């Protein structure tokens, strides 16, 4: 739930990057971190294994400016993608305001995408959320690789509702900020209804 502090005039929102293992969730955060001015970001915390696979979560706070006199701060999290870490994924979804599903566009990762998307719906439901009602965007990552599924086919398979779809190459930053903007816009729009 969006945390609004009227005393300090701050809006804090939690956005979670979800997706199968090695799809590029941490790379998305790393690019945002590297491309953001020092004063707008906090530390990038990465709870990872010795081989740099996310163990619990990555986290970075990002300040985007003010809306109606309220400072907006986004708390960006990633989940561990490996199937094994499902208990951790459930915990990170607590209090979520918006979700980015990062799909791996490579043909051989299609099953992993579908499994992870199903897992997202199930874990959201355990936490009392409905994906159909939550701010949500779909990112089709790794579009620069040779063995990718055409965008239309991938979107047809993975799209859950009328969510915006973004093509991305997180390693070079292509589409990373468009994706973030897509979900942030929905989260802030939700405030109108609150």
């Amino acid at each position, binding site marked *: 739930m969006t945390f609004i502090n009227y005393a300090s005039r701050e809006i804090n929102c939690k956005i979670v990057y979800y997706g199968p293992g090695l799809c590029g969730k941490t790379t998305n955060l790393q690019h945002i971190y590297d491309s953001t001015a020092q004063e707008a970001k906090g*530390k990038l*915390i990465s*709870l990872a294994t010795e081989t740099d696979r996310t163990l619990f979560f990555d986290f970075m706070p990002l300040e985007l400016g003010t809306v109606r006199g309220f400072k907006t701060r986004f*708390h960006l999290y990633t989940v561990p993608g490996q199937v094994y870490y499902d208990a951790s994924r459930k*915990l990170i979804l607590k209090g979520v305001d918006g979700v980015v599903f990062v799909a791996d566009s490579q043909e051989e990762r299609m099953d992993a995408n579908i499994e992870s998307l199903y897992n997202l719906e199930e874990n959201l439901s355990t936490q009392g959320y409905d994906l159909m009602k939550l701010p949500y965007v779909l990112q089709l990552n790794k579009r620069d690789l040779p063995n990718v599924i055409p965008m239309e086919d991938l979107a047809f398979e993975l799209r859950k509702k009328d969510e915006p779809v973004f093509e991305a190459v997180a390693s070079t930053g292509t589409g990373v900020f468009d994706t973030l903007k897509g979900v942030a816009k929905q989260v802030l*729009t939700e405030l109108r209804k609150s």
Partner: protein
Amino acid sequence: MKSVIGRLCVECAARAVFLVDRDGQTIAVHGEIGDMDMTSFASLAAGNVAATHSMAKLIGENAFPSVVHEGERESIFISVIGRSLLVVVFDERSTLGLVKIRAKKASYEVAAILDDAAEDSKAFHIAQDSVFADISDDDIDSLFA
């Protein structure tokens, strides 16, 4: 709330006391913060308690009401109060026993204040609805300009 947390910080000779919600948002802080990254600290405290809570369930325990991490010089005591976490950071100037006793006493006061705040917030929320109802697409776009 600030006075309760401030008093707790003095009474147990703590370095700092934080009140954080279970989603990792900082509610109140008192003490020697220095250049500590409070946002990351709050987020990690929440993640820590969430993980410990799940471990409790796995061994048939309903919850662990408190979590302690003892270091060589600095230690952390976290007490779970409903949806919030009272976090005490202390060093060799204090002891775990003292922190536990004082934090338990303060937790009743904190719980009462949070209950009152939750009630006030409902009324306040109704009165404040118009602030965000007026957010325009241009307002949102300007954040990414």
